[in-house]
């Protein structure tokens, strides 16, 4: 009962915030991101590409003022490289059981081949953080949800492990934990009987960081991934998208994904 009341209050607060955001963009928009990004950042220094990070005080709730996303340049993504995948496994404490069919996997490398030209490209595929997420649509418990700032998550406290969301996800982005888990990472709780997927490293993001995969890709100088706020027109990711555009995988499904790809030529 208490919980329901809480929810109502928070919902109306959120409604108010989003309405306020529409009505008074001037009062709310400034201060979200004060980084000014020069064109130099796009063409030159790779580390500058990931300057768009959360500046929200941690005692305030996330809001739809931001939408976190990633942009992946497939022309820079090296075939056979798994730096992002390794970083993700380490970050989230994912353990293999020598059962590739069922081992948890938040991000994987995929090779696409054009049927018409035979052109091949290699890209990392993870939860695309859909705005209208099929996983959240089908979830019978409300465990699958999309946070106000666009990050799709599983609330494992209430997930019953029915795996509807796994079936609904067009990108096969989700995994089910089949085994007891020990030695979890503090920032990545995970356990048997629940479904999980890429969280866009939500704890890092909330603390003003960038996802582990993007960090690794940049550190290894591949620079194939940019993280940032899609709603901030001055963020490197938005500037780059405006300049060169980006594709949504299976854009025919109109899910408005938060992860976009470049260089997907046939």
């Amino acid at each position, binding site marked *: 009962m208490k919980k329901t009341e809480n929810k109502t209050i928070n919902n109306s607060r959120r409604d108010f915030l989003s309405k306020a955001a529409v009505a008074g963009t001037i009062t709310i928009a400034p201060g979200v991101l004060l980084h000014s990004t020069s064109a130099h950042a796009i063409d030159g220094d790779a580390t500058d590409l990931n300057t768009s990070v959360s500046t929200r005080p941690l005692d305030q*709730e996330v809001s739809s003022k931001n939408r976190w996303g990633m942009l992946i340049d497939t022309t820079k993504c090296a075939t056979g490289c798994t730096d992002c995948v390794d970083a993700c496994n380490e970050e989230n404490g994912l353990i293999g059981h020598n059962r590739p069919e069922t081992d948890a996997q938040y991000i994987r490398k995929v090779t696409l081949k054009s049927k018409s030209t035979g052109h091949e490209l290699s890209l990392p595929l993870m939860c695309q953080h859909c705005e209208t997420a099929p996983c959240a649509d089908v979830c019978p418990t409300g465990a699958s949800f999309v946070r106000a700032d666009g990050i799709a998550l599983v609330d494992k406290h209430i997930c019953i492990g029915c795996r509807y969301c796994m079936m609904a996800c067009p*990108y096969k982005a989700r995994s089910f934990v089949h085994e007891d*888990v020990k030695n979890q990472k503090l920032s990545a709780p995970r356990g048997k009987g629940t479904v999980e997927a890429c969280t866009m490293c939500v704890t890092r993001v909330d603390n003003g960081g960038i996802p582990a995969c993007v960090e690794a890709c940049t550190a290894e100088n591949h620079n194939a991934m940019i993280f940032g706020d899609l709603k901030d027109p001055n963020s490197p990711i938005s500037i780059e998208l405006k300049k060169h555009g980006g594709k949504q995988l299976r854009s025919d499904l109109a899910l408005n994904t938060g992860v976009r790809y470049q260089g997907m030529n046939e």
Partner: protein
Amino acid sequence: MTRFLRQTAVMVYALVGFSLLSASTLVGTAHAGTPFPDIHEPTDKSVKCIQPEDVMRREHMNYILHERDETMREGIRGEPESLANCINCHVEPDENGEIAGIETDQHFCSACHEYTAVQIDCFQCHADRPQKYIKRNSHTSSLRQQLQQTLAASNAADKGVKQ
């Protein structure tokens, strides 16, 4: 009549047991015949708990539950009422540098929970010790090899994802 007496006796025992439980500091003091859980007291006495002991004993689950939903759904972090905060103070290595895991009755949480026979589910997902004592993932490197090997196989299976 005997039944009534027996019931009364049970009630008296329960009452005595309960008052002992709340009166004592619960730190393994040897009361004749009454077993007590062995609860680890944080060694750093300069850090105060967020609430008095009696409040925490009764309310800790409510604090954690409230914070859980706010963190999960709204991204509010760093509030003092968090499971990670409990663990950070209350779970420490012993003299030998070993940490008693949640599966033992020496862990701060399981000591009481086993004593009161209340099942605790938090640690099926959450770390039962502070981050600095979490072992690095020894399996990750084998996962890496396995990944490299199965990359080709999974690629074949993923051809269904169209551009």
